[in-house]
């Protein structure tokens, strides 16, 4: 397509799902479910087709650095003052980075919408469900396509809203409603970081005496970086570092990293397709996207980059450890998501931005597949507890086979997509040059350990769910059934993508071009850590061999413990009771947050309320009582001294009270009438003369 034409229709990508959301949301239960499905899925499909169009349009532009289309729809807000101004456009930016995300969001999103048709069949509020899902797609696309951080923030909190609405979709269950609330509030804490970062940014970009209004487009931010670097540090920390770290707090909230990851496991209360779409494939990757989008900012601050890498590596390992001891199939996958997101941050933190996006993409495929597979299982057994599953592979053959593909991918076995992207991350880490000597190696080891644990807990999940014998109620056995085609279809497509996704970024050893890295490069300033630039093929192969070995060890241990010798698990759990309890209770972090943050805030609120009632109002009441008493006293004294000559103030009050009482019987109009008439007459009198 002609780039100019494409430039004018970018806004349709987010707009169409918004229209879908509005139509489904306002129609309520007046239209049939069939119409709801067509609108819900169709709008996302349309967006996907436009995104594909955008992708090929960008490819058709010969000069890679020119592959940027910016559509300014209208001026969103502005303020002018003498010698300055602030003006933010509602502008969308289609470039290689955003188009990749658009394709993932609308492509995987469409499959999940389709799957939902089957999964939600029989639910009373399907119009509401699809309206929320479309609204989410809209918000996510605004987040991805926004050309400035303020507009990005609209999408950023918008996805949080939809996440809240969808986690608590079955709101009659108060626990689910509460999980939604927790997600929103924890995210809000992160969002605060994002917003304060934005405040810093505007302030740092403001030049006194420059009458040009401050815009916030990403191009102008990148252009303003020298100013940021020259700015006076605050408390010895450079402005760029401040801003990058503040934005990163936002990323830890949205992308569930340490310390703000706690909402994601609870978010599994939502319908499973929602978990697949929002809490695995798209929304939770927003933080990674944001860091990559602001790569020029992060590259300006080695400190911030290191923090990102360290937090990512720690989260990758930590969440994998917790995943080992969870029995809820969705919770295992949730911790797995947290862990995988950690890998993406690890990649971004060492400067391998394209690799991070690569893993984001492949993860979207295989993790969505895992969740949808889990959803198919839950659809059959109607609960999430892996202890009451088992042997499902013969009942759910398609689910099992597609799940197996995703399992192999997340374990990191060649040649699946997960293998390629994860190895690229580990390779980038081992070859990275970080400010602290030896850190890169340590982070790489953490990553490898996480990979081993991932293979272990995924093997455990696979064996507990699909192998062995069925451990549920005996009479349930007859009802076990494969999901309808509308659900297995998306599973098969995603399985295909999981197998083939690796070709987006072929390792150097194949001597084939790394498509994604080349495509993204124009967006990424001086990101040197790509695989192909360094060309250390021998090291790359070495990392591949080691990581495959680690994965195989994890799988073997898992197989030994959960298939070969199941009693060993109990023995282990009994021997290490403390460790086991610690893991099963997720290191008691939720409890700690409750005690250290939630409770004190509630206490403070209660105290404030009490202070308002007793303290401030106490003073008010004291003043009024004292005044009344004083007036009585004066009145009494007045009576005594000036013998019956003057009315006491108290009596005046009494009379006033009587008068007021009379007023309240409905004759107030007369008084008012007189008064207003008086003013009116006076007024007209003056007007005339």
């Amino acid at each position: 397509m002609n780039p100019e034409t494409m430039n004018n229709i970018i806004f349709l990508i987010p707009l169409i799902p918004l229209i879908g959301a509005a139509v489904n949301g306002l129609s309520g239960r007046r239209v049939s479910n069939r119409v709801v499905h067509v609108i819900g899925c169709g709008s996302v499909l349309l967006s996907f087709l436009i995104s594909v169009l955008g992708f090929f349009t960008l490819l058709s532009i010969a000069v890679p650095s020119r592959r940027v289309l910016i559509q300014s729809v209208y001026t969103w807000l502005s303020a002018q003052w003498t010698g300055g101004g602030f003006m933010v456009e509602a502008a969308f930016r289609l470039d290689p980075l955003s188009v990749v995300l658009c394709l993932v969001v609308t492509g995987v999103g469409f499959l999940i919408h389709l799957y939902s048709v089957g999964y939600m069949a029989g639910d009373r509020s399907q119009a509401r469900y699809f309206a929320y899902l479309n609204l989410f797609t809209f918000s996510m696309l605004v987040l991805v396509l926004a050309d400035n951080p303020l507009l990005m923030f609209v999408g950023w909190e918008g996805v949080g809203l939809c996440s809240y609405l969808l986690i608590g979709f079955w709101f009659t269950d108060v626990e689910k409603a509460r999980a939604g609330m927790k997600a929103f509030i924890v995210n809000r804490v992160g969002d605060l970081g994002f917003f304060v970062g934005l405040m810093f940014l505007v302030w740092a970009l403001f030049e006194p005496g420059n009458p040009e209004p401050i815009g916030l487009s990403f191009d102008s931010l990148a252009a303003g970086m020298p100013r940021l670097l020259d700015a006076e540090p605050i408390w010895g920390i450079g402005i760029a570092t401040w801003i990058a770290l503040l934005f990163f707090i936002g990323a830890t909230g949205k992308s569930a990293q340490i310390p703000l990851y706690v909402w994601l496991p609870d978010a599994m209360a939502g319908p499973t397709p929602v978990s697949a779409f929002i809490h695995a494939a798209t929304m939770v990757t927003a933080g990674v996207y944001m860091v990559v989008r602001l790569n020029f900012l992060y590259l300006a601050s080695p400190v911030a980059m290191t923090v990102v890498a360290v937090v990512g590596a720690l989260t990758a390992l930590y969440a994998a450890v917790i995943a080992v001891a969870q029995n809820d199939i969705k919770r295992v996958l949730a911790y797995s998501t947290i862990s995988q997101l950690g890998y993406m941050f690890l990649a971004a933190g060492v400067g391998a931005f394209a690799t991070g996006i690569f893993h984001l993409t492949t993860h979207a495929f295989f993790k969505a597949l895992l969740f949808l597979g889990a959803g198919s299982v839950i659809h059959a057994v109607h609960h999430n507890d892996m202890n009451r599953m088992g042997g499902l592979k013969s009942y759910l053959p398609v689910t099992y086979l597609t799940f197996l593909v995703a399992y192999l991918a997340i374990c990191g076995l060649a040649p699946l997509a997960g293998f390629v992207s994860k190895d690229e991350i580990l390779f980038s880490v081992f070859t990275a040059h970080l400010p602290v000597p030896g850190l890169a190696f340590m982070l790489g080891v953490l990553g490898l350990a996480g990979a081993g644990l991932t293979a272990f807990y995924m093997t455990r999940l696979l064996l507990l769910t699909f192998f062995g014998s069925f451990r549920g109620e005996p009479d349930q056995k007859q009802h076990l059934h494969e999901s309808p085609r509308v659900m297995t279809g998306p599973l098969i497509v995603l399985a295909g993508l999981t197998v083939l996704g690796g070709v987006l970024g072929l390792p150097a050893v194949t001597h084939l071009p790394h498509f994604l890295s080349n495509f993204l490069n124009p967006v990424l300033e001086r990101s040197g850590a790509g695989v192909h630039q360094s060309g250390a093929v021998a090291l790359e192969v070495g990392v591949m061999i080691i990581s495959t070995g680690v994965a195989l060890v994890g799988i073997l241990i898992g197989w030994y413990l959960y298939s070969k010798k199941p009693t060993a698990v109990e023995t282990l759990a009994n021997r290490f009771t403390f460790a086991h309890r610690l893991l099963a209770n997720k290191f008691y972090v939720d409890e700690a947050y409750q005690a250290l943050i939630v409770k004190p805030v509630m206490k403070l609120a209660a105290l404030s309320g009490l202070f308002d009632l007793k303290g401030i109002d106490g003073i008010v009441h004291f003043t009024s009582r004292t005044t009344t008493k004083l007036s009585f006293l004066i009145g009494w004294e007045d009576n005594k001294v000036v013998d019956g000559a003057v009315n006491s103030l108290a009596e005046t009050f009494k009379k006033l009270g009587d008068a007021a009482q009379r007023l309240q019987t409905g004759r107030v109009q007369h008084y008012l009438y007189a008064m207003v008439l008086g003013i009116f007459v006076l007024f007209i009198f003056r007007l005339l003369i």
Partner: protein
Amino acid sequence: MIHDHILSLMIFTPMVGFVLILAAPSKRPTLIKTIALCATIPPLVWAARIYFQFDRGTSNFQWVEKVPWIDAFNIQYHLGIDGISIPMVLLTALISFICVIASWNIDKYVRGYFSLFLLLDTSMMGVFCALDFFLFFVFWELMLLPMYFLIGVWGGPNKEYAAIKFFLFTLVGSVLMLVVMLIFYFGSMDPQTGGHTFDLTLLANQGTHQSFLQDNVLRWSCYLALLIGFAVKIPVVPLHTWLPDAHVEAPTAISVILAGILLKMGTYGLLRISYPLLPDMTLAFAPFVAVLGLISIVYGALCAMAQKDLKKLIAYSSISHMGFVVLGMSVFTNTMAINGAVLQMFNHGTVTAMLFLLVGVVYDRAHHRDIDRLGGLAQNMPIYAAFSGLAFFAALGLPGLSSFISEALVLIGSFPKYKVITIAATTGIVLTAGYFLWTMQRVFLGSLDERNTGLPEINPREIFTLTPLALLVVFLGFYPMPVLKLIGATLEHTVALVLKNGAGF
């Protein structure tokens, strides 16, 4: 031309309704209600006319009317609107119309209620149009009277207490304003006539009173007196305790007026009177005012979190949200913050009006507002829950809805000047999300209490009152420029004037 007097028409059309209602037989409530409705429609039409014809490029007053009123004291009937007043005039016209409809189920002393209501309408419109200090004061006081009775007669169980508390608090502010007004009157000299003047446009020129009002102590006393007077109205912590009581007791429509419009008179008064008359003190007091804003934001949010009465919770949320207006008004290095503040005055007017209307809906049905005794209402009142969800999320500043824009502008604009204060103020955003979502959960989510199964869904009349506000909240979130364009030029001028005149001392 009739449209040269459009402001007078807007102010006094409700007054015509007032006279007609008093003449109408009290036995015919529907007639009275219809008269009241008809008296609020023309101002709405004129408001639309004003909106389209307003010259956005100038900071001058428009639709000015100037007639001598009381010659002996050089008092003038002087009206006019600029970018600061126009959003308030539009809001007043809209909210008054909506509130008449929201009052349709009033059945006690119908004649008294609607006559007082229209009187209130006149006084509010008058405050936002008056350019003569005396006239401003008359309208300001005139508002007090109907408000007192509307709370005291048509209020809840504890109405007398609330009405008197409201009255006394406001009266203290009025007395202080009166004193300052007289000081300025006797300290001023009209350059043309040589006499004293109440004309705010003349008093804004420091030359008219500079020679008399030189004493610094006098100047800051005057500023402080005005600040207290207006702070009571906003209300600013710790002068706020009348507000929760007044709200809890007031009938629904009066709460809407109170939070939607009356509170804005405080911040409007600061902008219209304190800033031009005492620019040097405005600059000197600015950090203090910013701290007051911060305290209101955080303390109001904390108190809201502690409430069990839904209406009281929203009353405290108003205190918190008005804190953003106060914070934004204390910055003069850019106009982002003050634009945000005035936009927030408008946005808070629409959002809080929605919130109070919504509380009224549940109170009319359940006859209580105890959050703990509600719950699961989304099941039998889904449309009501949807409106509430929109209003709650607007109130907690969700991007894409109107309040976000104004709060974001305030925070981004205040940050360069007050870094620590602004960062501390952002914690209010998390607290606000906390208590609104918690309330959402306790009122609407979870299982439906059997006591509440019989509550009927929101009715078409109530939907009609909420819809225009809901549309504004969504529209101004995506596209706030219609309001920003109205106010921009005037605020640029206001800030420049404060800086110029304030630096002269």
